[in-house]
């Protein structure tokens, strides 16, 4: 479903006689939108089925002035760029030794390319990042594109340490509550069975206890967690969680 910004921008485009079928999504920051335009829609001049880099640059300026929206037009895969994208996909899959990683290439109007792949940042080592960057950079330069940034946007699998922390914050708690807490903190959504097995592993190390279907942290568990200063302190989070709890 379109957000308020994307809806507003779509209507605004129609009012400016830009009636092409393009994908519009919210950008990273509030007030940013990203518009994906297939490469075949671009022509040297504006015509019935074509837009031009000049028109896009004009719309970009107008959107800031009239709507306060910052628009990032990205040229996306079709024809020429699709071929480049599949070439890059093959290189990335080879570097990551994974055949199911999805790769998405987006090119800005001034031919800077951003590369996105949907693997967890945790699974990418420094060596692999360098290898991907070097291989892809050379490949893109041959087709007159400059590699700008590589993003991996997958969520990470939670570690046992964060599972232990969740028990500290939520105790007495259930596996379902732990799973929900982890998902809310941006980790990969994991099945309840996975959470139960992790909790069981922590219980066997005497870091947590299990009684009456709920888990609680032990002294050994408490002393294993890091003592941090600032908002990320588990003690502060625990105090806030207690305040919110309905007894």
């Amino acid at each position, binding site marked *: 479903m379109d957000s308020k910004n994307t809806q507003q921008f779509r209507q605004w485009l129609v009012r400016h006689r830009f009636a092409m079928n393009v994908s519009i999504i919210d950008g990273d920051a509030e007030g940013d939108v990203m518009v994906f335009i297939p490469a075949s829609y671009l022509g040297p001049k504006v015509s019935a089925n074509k837009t031009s880099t000049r028109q896009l640059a004009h719309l970009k300026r107008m959107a800031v002035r009239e709507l306060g929206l910052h628009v990032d037009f990205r040229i996306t895969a079709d024809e020429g760029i699709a071929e480049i994208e599949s070439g890059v996909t093959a290189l990335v899959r080879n570097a990551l030794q994974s055949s199911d990683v999805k790769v998405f290439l987006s090119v800005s109007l*001034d031919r800077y390319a951003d590369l996105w792949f949907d693997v967890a940042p945790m699974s990418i*080592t420094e060596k692999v990042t360098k290898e991907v960057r070097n291989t892809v950079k050379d490949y893109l330069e041959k087709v007159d594109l400059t590699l700008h940034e590589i993003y991996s946007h997958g969520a990470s699998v939670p*570690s046992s340490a964060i599972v*232990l922390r969740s028990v500290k914050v939520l105790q007495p708690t259930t596996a379902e509550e732990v799973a929900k807490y982890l998902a809310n903190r941006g980790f990969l959504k994991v099945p309840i069975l996975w959470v139960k097995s992790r909790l069981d592993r922590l219980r066997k190390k005497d870091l947590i206890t299990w009684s009456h279907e709920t888990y609680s942290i032990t002294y050994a568990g408490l002393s294993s967690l890091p003592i*941090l200063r600032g908002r*990320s302190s588990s003690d502060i989070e625990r105090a806030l969680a207690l305040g919110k709890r309905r007894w």
Partner: protein
Amino acid sequence: MKVVADRLRDIALHSNLDHEIDLFGRSAFNRYYYAAYLAVRKNLMEINSDWATAAHKNLPTILTIAINKSATRIAINLTKKGILTKSEESRILTSIKICGYELSKILQSGYEARSYADYFPEEIVTRESGNLSLHNYTTHEAQSWPKRAEKHAVQLLNIWRQLG
């Protein structure tokens, strides 16, 4: 902050007066740096509130050295107690290292550009084909600092959270 920077850059790009191009242009570089700095600071505060008040010049060192030291100490302790496996420890520490390094590079570039903008009026901002240049920096590059800083800083915080 980035909105202010974009507006200043637009004014500089559309001005016909050299001194306006220079003055608005150098302020745009200053604001782009601050937008990136604030994105990093906001996320660093979550990790350690002391780092939020660190001097600008020290932030790259915090991101490449201090944060690695803290993370290593915590990770080794968690591994000793059997909470993290050796490979989890290594992945977390490598990811923190990469993110910290990327952020420090962005802040170093931004800080240098901002220093030229604020303290070296003899270095003039020039305009060329829709882009402003100051010393070795262009607004095209500066524009990307806030977004890239935000992305890497959020990623850094997410990885840090794996330490419990």
